[in-house]
């Protein structure tokens, strides 16, 4: 398999992807002062697939993800979502375009209930004009649906997040990202802080998102997890997108070689 580095490698052979390209990044570059964190990154990801980004610490994975999520604005390059060029000024704009991010910090409010976190800044209201009040009943019912729809293991949607375990919190954060007709769910190291069992649950959740037809962008340090979960892997090395592979056409050893630069794309 040979691919030029300037354009996205075209996967060929039996594992030809079926989903439509949802997000297309071309020539995305970003510098922090003298640090060139991203250099001409080209990368595609498809609906109904889990796309993984792997790479060493400092390779630029999080920076790229933040460009897609509207946290950073690239200095150069284009990002297309569903065929339209987008340029988000803030995360809210990305959210409105259907891109949800599960932050490493999870961004949950501990003293609010699960349902309040699920609906944070998207609260349902009823009534008219200045007399709009929260539709608490509607939100609690909606929260129960969201949670049971993804078979998330959360004791009750009325418990405070403070009472949940790490895995349950992760599940709530993913559930929030999955709700509200998001098209792309970005997860940066979603299982880094979890135990074995909790990791399994979260992985099952990620698979359900894919089966639901959404695009999932997963940043992970765990190669086994990447091989288990993903359909497509992109390897980043010192700010560049060094290679892309269909997961079933590659091996853990090859990915490691690509990450370290022992093998070039």
């Amino acid at each position: 398999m040979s691919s030029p580095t300037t354009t996205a490698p075209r996967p060929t052979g039996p594992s030809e992807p079926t989903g439509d390209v949802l997000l297309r990044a071309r020539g995305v570059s970003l510098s922090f002062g003298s640090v060139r964190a991203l250099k001409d990154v080209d990368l595609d990801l498809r609906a109904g697939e889990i796309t993984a980004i792997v790479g060493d610490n400092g390779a630029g994975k999080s920076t790229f993800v933040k460009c897609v999520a509207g946290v950073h604005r690239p200095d150069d390059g284009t990002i297309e979502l569903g065929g339209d060029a987008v340029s988000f000024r803030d995360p809210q704009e990305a959210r409105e375009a259907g891109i949800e991010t599960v932050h490493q910090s999870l961004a949950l409010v501990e003293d609010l209930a699960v349902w309040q976190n699920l609906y944070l800044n998207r609260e349902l209201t009823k009534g008219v004009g200045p007399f709009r009040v929260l539709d608490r009943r509607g939100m609690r019912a909606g929260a129960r649906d969201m949670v049971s729809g993804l078979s998330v293991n959360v004791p009750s949607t009325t418990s405070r997040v403070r009472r949940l375990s790490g895995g349950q919190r992760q599940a709530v954060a993913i559930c929030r990202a999955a709700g509200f007709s998001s098209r792309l769910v970005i997860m940066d190291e979603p299982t880094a802080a979890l135990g074995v069992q909790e990791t399994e649950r979260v992985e099952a959740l990620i698979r359900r998102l894919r089966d639901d037809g959404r695009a999932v962008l997963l940043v992970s340090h765990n190669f086994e997890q990447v091989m288990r979960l993903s359909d497509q892997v992109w390897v980043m090395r010192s700010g560049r997108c060094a290679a892309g592979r269909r997961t079933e056409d590659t091996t853990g050893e090859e990915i490691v070689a690509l990450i370290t630069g022992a093998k070039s794309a």
Partner: protein
Amino acid sequence: MVSATTSTSRDGARRSGPDGADRDGAATPARPRWRERLADPGTWAELAAPVGLVVLVVLFQVLDPTFLTLGNIEAMLAAAAILVVLATGQTFTVATGGIDLAVASTMTFSAVMFGVAFGAGAPVGVCVVVSVVTGLLFGLAQGLVIGYGRITDFIVTIGGLSIASGLALVVSGGQPQSIISTFMLRLSTGGVGVVGYPVLVALVVAAAAHVLLFHTRFGTHVLAAGGSPEAATATGISTRRVKTAVYTLSGTCAGLAGVLLVARIGAAEPAANTQFLLNAVASVVLGGVALMGGRANIAGPLFGALLLTALTNGLTLLGVSQFYQPVAVGSVVVLAAFLSRYQR
């Protein structure tokens, strides 16, 4: 009285608190709720004010049977009204993890502006508006500096305390303006039964604040911005706007309290009113509102204000020297803060 339970809606067989969260969501439903709630020290922090109030009332009534006479209850409620209004506004700033140290000075400044308008021959209705708008604008200014200038709440409002007190002196020339108006007289003396108009005003403010905090998007955003500014920002909530809004709210309450103050003393005075600041913060702490932000309720501070008023009143009835009252208030507040340590 605004009860925390009046507005909780039933959710199947499950009940949740006014802030939407169970204290024990993971618990098995078979066990009685109240037993688990009593086992949670957080409940005690939130119940500190009402429980403390009952204890004080019983204690004072035993020591002095005139404590619970109609006249004294009326006097206590009237005295508590201003404090309830101030504490209600303060609750919102504390809920965001901030504090409005300028509440009492804003109230004084608003009262003085009432006097200036009155002295200039404005109708009482206009004077009331002047007072409330003065508080609103002062709070807005503080909120903008805190939210957009990104300066710590504590520093800005301690500056605001000084500025508002100074402005009150400047505008009044240091002189009180006596207010002779039948409307203001009726406001301070009239009422429905034992419940005077100032008390009704305070109850309406508290009820509106309860709805605002627990039944509007704004209220949720206040709790989110206080509980986790990062999470609030990540979901697109503007913490700057929330900050600006809560200080505007606190200032507006102070402006309204200024009107009640003028009615109560029959004059607009540039007095310091320091005890109102201490008691407003104390009521909020007694009410189980977390000083770090993120957890708040309105009924608690209301009971806190009643407790502090009953404490002062009872000590006065018992002939305890005025000098001991700040000592008693301070001790009660530290005790409440101690209880709130277990809240989390």
